[in-house]
């Protein structure tokens, strides 16, 4: 008995034919409440859009309002490998082929012909400042050439395998772009230096840096943002491992040495430095 009654109340709740109620409301009641919520939410959406619009008006097109989180620019390598691990076997082409392809893709904008076409030759070893004169923006801003050939043996032009096939792989290092950053004072260009972590120091062997000393030339700075400086070419440094120990994990850390970039926080493993693992199997 009780169960029947319960059943019918449930049914009644969903559709009550006597009062013509669906889920406890009549059609007009449903209509009113839905209309109310529709109008209410449209109003809220309008209000939200208005506040967002006002906020976006306050933003500068060329420079974000705050940059305090980018005090120490990050560093990154190419190829990235899988979660910063580069493991391959020179004998097995398929194990390193994708690294070479990644680098090919990554370096194609740096082809000398493209650079010459889009970018200027700048005066090296000094900042390429293109100031605005007051409210008049000096746009678009020009960028300096970074020719692929600067990477020499790591440019992939002569050695299309970037040394991967003979166990002397190239890794390309770049410094994250930060608008307006000046990475060195007194004409001292920042440079990259790599080393093995403690226990691996024996295994790393010799390294070669391209361009010479692994410097990022000052003429590539400051960066003016992708809107103003459309064709900006981020400077690169390539390192080549000349006789790394085979068949063992080698943990490598590269850092930027500069007299104006503050050391990053301990928690951030990629601010002003980059670590990765390299293992060449045979």
């Amino acid at each position, binding site marked *: 008995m009780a169960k029947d009654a319960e059943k019918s109340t449930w049914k009644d709740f969903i559709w009550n034919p006597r009062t013509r109620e669906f889920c406890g409301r009549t059609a007009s009641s449903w209509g009113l409440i839905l209309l109310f919520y529709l109008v209410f939410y449209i109003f809220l959406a309008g209000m939200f859009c208005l506040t967002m619009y006002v906020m976006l008006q306050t*933003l500068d097109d060329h420079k974000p309002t705050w940059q305090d989180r980018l005090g120490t620019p990050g560093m990154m390598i190419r190829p990235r490998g899988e979660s910063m691990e580069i493991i391959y076997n020179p004998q097995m082409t398929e194990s390193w082929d994708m690294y070479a392809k990644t680098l090919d893709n990554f370096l194609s904008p740096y082809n000398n012909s493209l650079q010459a076409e889009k970018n200027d030759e700048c005066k090296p070893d000094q900042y390429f400042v293109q100031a605005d004169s007051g409210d008049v923006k000096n746009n678009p801003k020009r960028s300096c050439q970074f020719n692929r050939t600067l990477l020499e043996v790591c440019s992939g032009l002569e050695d299309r395998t970037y040394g991967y096939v003979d166990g002397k792989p190239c890794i390309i290092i770049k410094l*994250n772009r930060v608008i307006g950053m000046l990475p060195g004072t007194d004409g001292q260009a920042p440079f990259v230096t790599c080393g093995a972590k403690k226990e691996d120091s024996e295994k790393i062997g010799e390294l070669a840096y391209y361009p010479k000393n692994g410097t990022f030339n000052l003429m590539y700075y400051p960066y003016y943002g992708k809107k103003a400086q459309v064709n900006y070419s981020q400077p690169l440094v390539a390192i080549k491992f000349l006789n790394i120990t085979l068949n063992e994990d080698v943990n490598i850390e590269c850092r930027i040495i500069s007299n104006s970039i503050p050391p990053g926080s301990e928690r951030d493993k990629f601010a002003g430095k980059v670590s990765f693992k390299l293992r060449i199997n045979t």
Partner: protein
Amino acid sequence: MVDFNSIVVMYTWHTHCFSLSPSHTRIPTHTRYLIRDGPNCLTPPPTTPEWVKFCRQLFGGFSILLWTGAILCFLAYAIQAATEDEPAGDNLYLGIVLSVVVIVTGCFSYFQEAKSSKIMESFKNMVPQQALVIREGEKMTINAEEVVAGDLVEVKGGDRIPADLRVVSAHGCKVDNSSLTGESEPQSRSPDCTHDNPLETRNVAFFSTNCVEGTARGIVVCTGDRTVMGRIATLTSGLESGKTPIAKEIEHFIHLITGVAVFLGITFFILAVFLGYSWLEAVIFLIGIIVANVPEGLLATVTVCLTLTAKRMAKKNCLVKNLEAVETLGSTSTICSDKTGTLTQNRMTVAHMWFDNQIHEADTTEDQSGASFDKTSITWGALARVAALCNRAVFKAGQDQLPILKRDTAGDASESALLKCIELSCGSVKQIREKNKKVAEIPFNSTNKYQLSVHETEDPNDNRYLLVMKGAPERILDRCSTIIIQGKEQPMDEEMKESFQNAYMELGGLGERVLGFCHLLMPEDQYPKGFAFDCDDVNFTTENLCFVGLMSMIDPPRAAVPDAVGKCRSAGIKVIMVTGDHPITAKAIAKGVGIISEGNETVEDIASRLNIPVSQVNPRDAKACVIHGTDLKDLSQDQMDDILRNHTEIVFARTSPQQKLIIVEGCQRLGAIVAVTGDGVNDSPALKKADIGVAMGISGSDVSKQAADMILLDDNFASIVTGVEEGRLIFDNLKKSIAYTLTSNIPEITPFLLFIIVNIPLPLGTITILCIDLGTDMVPAISLAYEAAESDIMKRQPRNPTRDKLVNERLISIAYGQIGMIQALGGFFSYFVILAENGFLPSILVGIRLNWDDRSCNDLEDSYGQQWTYEQRKIVEFTCHTAFFVSIVVVQWADVIICKTRRNSVFQQGMKNKILIFGLFEETALAAFLSYTPGMDVALRMFPLKPSWWFCAVPYSVLIFVYDEIRKLLIRRNPGGWVERETYY
């Protein structure tokens, strides 16, 4: 249904009928009996072990959901630990935090409960009772607990009976059985077996009743739980008391919220798996949704709100034993009140006097503020002298400082009443008695129905003796031949007798106990000085006396009761009187306190007014009715329902404990929430059965206090009204508090949903959600418990438990659908502001999540072409969490202000709630503390905000306030309109 009679049958009743042999007085084996029967005390009701109570707090309510979340966190961490080299500690950390949260809130509720039960414990700390027993011919005083069956016990006036006794000898012994039967008249005890029913017979004295006067010796027949009292107590503990209304409401609400949380969690878990997230990620989403959905702090808030109210009530003399009972009183729709002690002062007081052929009214108020009568009449002097002299009651020593009415007396209730009356109006009774030395005395007995004494006169030259007599008025009248009017003796004629009869009837009709008084100055020639009066074999005249007057006594109503009953009535609460007393007395008191209001008549009243038989009166015409216990016995369930439904003013007289239960059950059957007040053991089954049992703190027996949910420390019915008011207020305020707390669930849950669906960086983390629920929201939510009522809550009907829910769909609609949505937008706005100002414009955010949360992607490009490492953008993300959190605090400012009222404008209500203002500052300070304290970036991953980010949500806060003020304005303008129907919670 519990059968009270069966208990009586079960009792080993033959013990009071068999003959006694001398051996019964010398049983040496008491230790053996003690071991066999156990100590002579009532087994306390089985208490739940502490650890069970603790576990209930730890695993009840939302805790299960949070435990699930914590276990999922640990599982996720375990999987991560097994598969990754450097597992992120986030999940482990969150799991620990969740466990701590559950344990801390569990402990909090547990200690809260322990605290309130401790107060109750303090009631039990009474001085251990002693008993004087005669064992093996030796008198010794032992602990009452050690008394065993077969002991010979001696009791005297003022003692508590240590066990069920069969009386073997008695000298003027009277016992007060009121704690057992509710009858306040002392009953005499003698060794004769007068009745088959042990409850009626004269030779049994019951455990825990009081010996009022005289002495008696008796053999213990039953001890501990086997006594009549013990059996009633067992009956009480066998009764299931139902869940309190607020407990049901909260349970309903927990089910609702849990259902929503589980539904959303599971839906998004499945959705996440379909969208291509890994199992681990899906589990983490699940945890997030659960945490966001559960108002973690709410149960603690409810507990605190109830505790605060309980404390406030304790200040007003209502001690609440069970926290949840705080609200029950507020939803009470029927109060079944005991008469003696609750509605009345529980002390006999002289109410009327008849002398000089006129009824005079005495002052019965507690503080002697009432009208007085003419005390100059000589007749009054004579009456006072008789009342003072023919009276064995005396004040106990050492109470000279106390007001007369507060003093303790030794003697029966009527004599004490007379004593106090005379002491008040004529000065020291002791002096009167010293001046008129007592020469002889015949104490009251039931065959004579009078008491007399012979005294010397005040005048030393007058050697006559004064005979004074008091007793049942008709008996006294029979012995009188003259009557004193205006100080002059006149012969008692028919006219006078008629007038006496009228006065006697009138006073009796008021439910008062009437005594007649007469005196005689004995002629000196017959009774010269030194005459030896023999009281056993009366050798002097007791006829042809001079009638002086009548005095009538009643246990008068308490001063505050009529007002309180009136308040109950305007609050829609029906007050029913249930008493063991006589119907006439009950009706008189009911009229006196307004339970039967002026102008309302019972069927009998109508019958006597119209001079027709009772059967011809239409019962519908009578709103009031007085029902005798014996009639109640014959009523069917339907008739009972009919009476309860159709009469607004009901008095039940001469009721037994079982009938009290029937009455309570009848009211509950009609859907009423019933409060029962009572003090005796006989009330305890009804107290337990009631939705809220109210025991008396001063006069109440232990059993009744144990069965009750609430104790009136001052035994005053008026305190119940205060309780009702507080209970109603807390229900309203809990609604507000819950509306406030639930609102912030929407800004907590929407970030997760958008995170999963449109792949934006997570706007609000689980830790920050916990910071809101358990940190910033707590004090403002609690502060709403201090909010003053919006209107006179004692002028509206009690809430209907089936319709007026604590959390209803309108509350959810407002909290989730409207205010919550505005809050969520406020939070999202500050989230977008921070990301945009840091370089991530809204346009690139959609779908960015995959790269954003990739640890190995350390050159993620923003809208300006800058590149970010994982840690750098996570700091921005956590800053967003902090800003979202702060925005919720900002919008909750407006929320707490709008939640202050449900109908009135805030401008009408004012900002008088200091705790709430403190709460506003506290939550803001806490938010600033969490954001700016160094080290918080590591501990809670909260980062300092730029000052401008605090203001992002302010427009939304203003919007909430304006929106709700408009809504409330519409509710006030159009009562019963669409806005009220859809949004008034």
